[in-house]
């Protein structure tokens, strides 16, 4: 009784084993609940598409990730089939297409935000000139101008990348600007008393100091970047993971949708993790500050 009360109190400090069990619990519970409902539906209708069983999903994964696009069509054909006729492995093609858009979009967005944030943070004239406008732009809901983006940039790659850039770069500029303004004035004065010129202050003092925070920010902005990527691919695309999801939706093909969603989640998790590890490795002083 006492131990139970202890467990639910704010004083409880779980051991590593308990922590792992507690962390796994919600995953196991939701998987279990899903499986229960799925098998109930399948007992009534073996072809149920709404809550596919793991076997159905595995079949879809096999078809999507390990077979070429037209492999089924040529099954059993006697003549040799050329690679072109067989088509691509769609999973690979979609993943690469989505990642390319995401990485290009986020990189351009982050670098331009760094430049603008830096100029606003360093030069008073640029702050007065740029900040109100950037603030205005950052409040415009990016999805509301999606039609404009499609009209201006067409429906090809450019439009999708632009949506990511427009959706993240203005907010990022403002955030970087804030980070730069949070650098104590004393640091700049100190650098000046050491004989630094403006260029050296930016290059040797400001940029190295904001670099880890900048990467951290980029890491956080990957989430909205995904959001805009998915929106763009859903509306106008010939490939990409989100395109595939929305295509599968037409056939109510949940067995394909669920694995792709899990795959996107996994990619997001890995990118997040790699950036974190990189920051820790590259900027030991940042970790030493305990931030």
């Amino acid at each position, binding site marked *: 009784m006492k131990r139970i009360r202890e467990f639910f109190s704010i004083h409880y400090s779980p051991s590593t084993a308990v922590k792992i069990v507690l962390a796994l619990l919600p995953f196991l519970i939701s998987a279990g609940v899903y499986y229960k409902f799925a098998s109930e539906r399948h007992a009534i209708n073996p072809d149920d598409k709404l809550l596919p069983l793991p076997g159905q999903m595995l079949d879809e994964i096999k078809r999507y990730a390990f077979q070429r696009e037209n492999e089924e069509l040529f099954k059993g054909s006697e003549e040799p089939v050329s690679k072109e006729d067989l088509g691509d492995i769609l999973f690979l093609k979609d993943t690469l297409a989505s990642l390319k858009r995401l990485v290009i979009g986020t990189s351009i967005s982050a670098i331009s935000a760094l430049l603008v944030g830096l100029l606003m943070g360093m030069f008073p004239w640029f702050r007065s000139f740029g900040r109100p406008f950037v603030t205005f732009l950052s409040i415009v809901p990016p999805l509301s101008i999606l039609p404009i983006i499609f009209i201006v940039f067409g429906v090809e790659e450019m439009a999708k990348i632009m949506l990511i850039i427009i959706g993240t770069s203005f907010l990022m500029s403002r955030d970087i600007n804030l980070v730069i303004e949070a650098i*104590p*004035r*004393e*640091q700049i*004065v*100190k*650098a*000046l*008393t*050491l*004989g*630094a*010129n403006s260029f*050296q202050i930016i290059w*040797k*003092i400001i940029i*190295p*100091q904001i*670099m880890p925070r900048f990467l951290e920010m980029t890491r956080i902005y990957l989430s909205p970047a995904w959001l805009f990527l998915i929106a763009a691919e859903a509306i106008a695309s010939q490939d990409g993971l989100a395109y595939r999801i929305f295509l599968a939706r037409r056939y109510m093909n949940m067995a394909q949708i669920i694995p792709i969603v899990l795959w996107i989640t996994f990619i997001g998790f890995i990118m997040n993790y790699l950036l974190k590890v990189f920051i820790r490795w590259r*900027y*030991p*002083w*940042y970790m*030493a*500050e*305990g931030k």
Partner: protein
Amino acid sequence: MMSDHYQQGKHVLYAENVIKVYGAKIVLADIDLAVSRGEFVTMVGPSGCGKSTLLRLILGQEQQSSGTLIIDGEAIEHPDERRGVVYQKYSLFPHLTVFDNVRLGPQFTRNPWRRFVERKIVRDEAMKFIDKVGLTEHASKFPAQLSGGQQQRVAIAQALIMRPAVLLMDEPYGALDPFTREELQEFLLQLWEETKMTIFFVTHDLEEALYLGSRLIGISQFYFEGKDMKARARGARVVVDLDLGRGRKTPATKATREFGESVRFVRHECFTPGISMRVIDLPLRHPDSFITLDAEQRGEK
């Protein structure tokens, strides 16, 4: 319009009629101050009286509203390598190791070619200063890995390597524990004797000011001007200026009766709101001190 108190070769720092106003608030009313080369000036004053403001003016970080401010024979414009500065916090660059922090000044002031050709000279110089402040084995650590006292030692080395005309220190020991503080006081005195540099040291600790300084300056807003004997809000001016001598001091000095009396005297002059003096009677006893007053301020009109 300058008076004839200024002596170019002698006075490394010179202020006359310096006034600083923020909006409608007069912070510094009329600072007159001449500091000779090699002096260890400590500045005290009630909190909020404008000590940091005066320091910012000397640094060139802000401009005085009126008056003359001269460093090493030239009017002050922006912060540059003629003044070194050590703050209570933020003196060090968190992303650089101790060695890189100390090496920064000599690197900044060389063009890329000389930086390359003389990199060994710069390295040896930096190590010499790190050695001088006793942190040789910590040279490759980041500031966050050092104690508060060690960080301030690095900050001093970082400023000293530039050999500034004046080393400005803004409550540098304010965040240290008493033991470290005493240790760093001794260290600074030793360094001052060795290098004979000019130091301008702001503190709110009277004992520290009296112990360290060869000259003590108190600024305060509590004084009377002219015929007006009513207390009212004013900007600060120098109200105490004492010659403490350049003799060798030991921690035992702090225990003497004389020292105690000096503390009481300055506290009475400078930190007691109820007690104010007429400007003509202020204890400005240092040989370099001067005050520029017009007839009205003297109370003759």
